[in-house]
């Protein structure tokens, strides 16, 4: 593979994908709060869209239940809505629409309808927005049948992922991450990333595996994470390479439902697994991953699966507090050291 041209940023990749989806699909409709130009959305993912497609981009009142609910109605009647919830925290207001409407109709009408809906929303903290603008509330939707949760890390082609989600016949909650927006996508073996591979899970969504060592070697530790956690994991690649610590990072994009096979393969490579999620760990994604790995690998795991995430409290606004409540590169580093020290 030739050396890639400088990659797009995460936000630019999403922005271009949205425009391409709208251009290619006359049934695509975008709606959300404050998305019209010149403002173009709180995080600028929709910038330019209303100028180019004024008849299919709708600014809504502050009414998250209706943003999702109207999208469901559009989807039932033949459109392909892509809704934006300005902050992921507000998706709690749309939960009834996602759980009891979008995810219910196809199955409870015995397959007679589809709800091809994408709800995009930025999750995550680190910007000092405080308790109601910093959460990772996708956790509320893990395991909801017939609702897909797709999370883009910056090790994924975020725009391509959005296009996959838009083409999915099932409703999708598309999880973006605020701190990833300005980052350049990292999509190849480049710099500290010595090998980079993408496979598809059984739902057809990409799973990225990246290592800080040449492909032939065996990793010391497997880090399984999703979405914004790529920002914390990638800096360890360079640091660890100089210390002979071989890391395999595995980032699925379809985080619920979860295909355990690619994760188990990544986990079996080292037998030592750390699962990182931005939200609190209790009853979380890491617990599901751990359960799946125990079932798939059993004694092949050399140590108990480690789960890392936020402290079990609100995400504080003060930087001194937020930095410590949220999981960090330092916390992941220490967990790797501890795992290698003991097993």
């Amino acid at each position, binding site marked *: 593979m030739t050396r890639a041209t400088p990659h797009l940023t995460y936000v630019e990749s999403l922005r271009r994908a949205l425009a391409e989806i709208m251009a290619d699909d006359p049934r695509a*409709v975008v709606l959300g709060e404050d998305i019209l130009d010149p403002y173009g959305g709180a995080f600028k993912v929709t910038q330019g869209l209303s100028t180019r497609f004024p*008849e*299919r981009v*709708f600014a*809504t*009142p502050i*009414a998250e*239940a*209706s943003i*999702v*609910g*109207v*999208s*469901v*109605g*559009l*989807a*039932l*009647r*033949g*459109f392909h*809505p892509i809704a934006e919830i300005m902050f992921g925290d507000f998706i709690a207001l749309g939960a*009834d*629409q996602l759980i*009891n*409407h979008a995810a*219910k*109709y*196809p*199955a*409870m*009408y*015995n*397959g*007679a*309808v589809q709800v091809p809906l994408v709800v995009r929303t930025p999750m995550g903290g680190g910007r000092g927005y405080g308790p109601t603008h910093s959460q990772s509330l996708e956790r509320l939707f893990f395991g909801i*049948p*017939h609702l897909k949760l797709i999370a883009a890390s910056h090790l994924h082609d975020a725009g391509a992922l959005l296009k996959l989600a838009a083409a999915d016949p099932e409703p999708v909650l598309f999880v973006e991450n605020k701190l990833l927006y300005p980052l350049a996508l990292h999509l190849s073996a480049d710099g500290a990333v010595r090998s980079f591979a993408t496979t598809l899970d*059984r*739902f057809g969504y990409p799973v990225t595996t990246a290592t800080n060592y040449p492909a032939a070697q065996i990793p010391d530790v497997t880090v399984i994470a999703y979405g914004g956690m790529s920002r914390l994991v990638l800096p360890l690649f360079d640091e660890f390479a100089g210390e002979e610590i071989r890391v395999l990072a595995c980032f699925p994009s379809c985080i619920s*439902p979860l295909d355990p096979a690619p994760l188990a393969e990544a986990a079996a490579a080292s037998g030592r697994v750390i699962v990182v999620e931005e939200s609190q760990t209790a009853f979380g994604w890491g617990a599901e991953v751990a359960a799946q790995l125990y079932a798939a690998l059993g004694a092949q795991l050399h140590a108990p699966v480690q789960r890392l995430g936020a402290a079990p409290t609100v995400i504080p606004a003060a930087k001194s507090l937020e930095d410590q409540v949220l999981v960090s590169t330092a916390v992941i580093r220490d967990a790797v050291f501890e795992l290698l020290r003991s097993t």
Partner: protein
Amino acid sequence: MEHPLAELFYAQMALIRRTEQTFFDLYAQGQIHGTVHTSIGQEATAVGVVNALDRTRDVIFSSHRAHGHFIAYCDDVEGLVAELLGRAGGVCGGVGGTQHLHTGNLYTNGVQGGIVPNAVGAALAEKLKQSGAIVVVFLGDGTMGQGVVYESLNLASLWALPLLFVLEDNQYAQSTHKQFEHAGNLADRPTPFQIDRTELTADDVLAVHDAARHAVATVRTTGRPYFLMLNTYRLAPHSKGDDMRSEEELAAYRARDPLQRLAATLPEAKRAAIDAAIEARLDAAVVQALAMPPQTLVSFRQQGGGWQR
């Protein structure tokens, strides 16, 4: 003097009434698994409104109490009976049951008010498609407690959508009278959103039909929402046998039963013939549904409920 639509409307209302009574019987016999919400006493709203629609293109959203809307819309009593009996031949394969029905352009769901923004989205879709179709959403007085209904009134007016809100006010949210749930007058709700409305008592299906035709025509020609408030009464319990209302109150409303009121305008022989045909049809529908195999997990998985573990 017999109205030209009286025979048709009587046949539909009587079919709804007898079907729902049959559901109570089947429930008592242990054949129906779960619950049944009936609209006995409210048949004039369903028949009056649905017959004002263009069934080939208009879209209906309704709630947990939708048997009447369903039958008035598609007449598929056989599919409905099989659905409530959990049979593979049910209109939703036995998955949805009484509260979750879909056929053609009709959609119902069991969460109060949740479907209203879906109706807004559908109205936006029909507007974007320039299909000329309108969307009707049926609400109950109880539903008017949900915030998302008011978001929907706002959006429908703001975006000028072809959406007809039909409020079937039967005075009770399950067991609680509306005076304990709502401040002010429900009929005034659309006014601040600049949505026009009509209010009438739904004892006379022909009057309901006239009002509905006017409402539908208004929505279709203006492309704007409209609000039709129908004061009605549920003569049967909310579901199964949970009724706390006084016998005096019930008796007063039974005397105003819209079905009996319409029946009185028909010749006895004509009515008897219609009734006999309904009985025969329902008997056959029940026998046919009971003879069907119960829905299987295999076909559920192959159709809507497929999952990958």
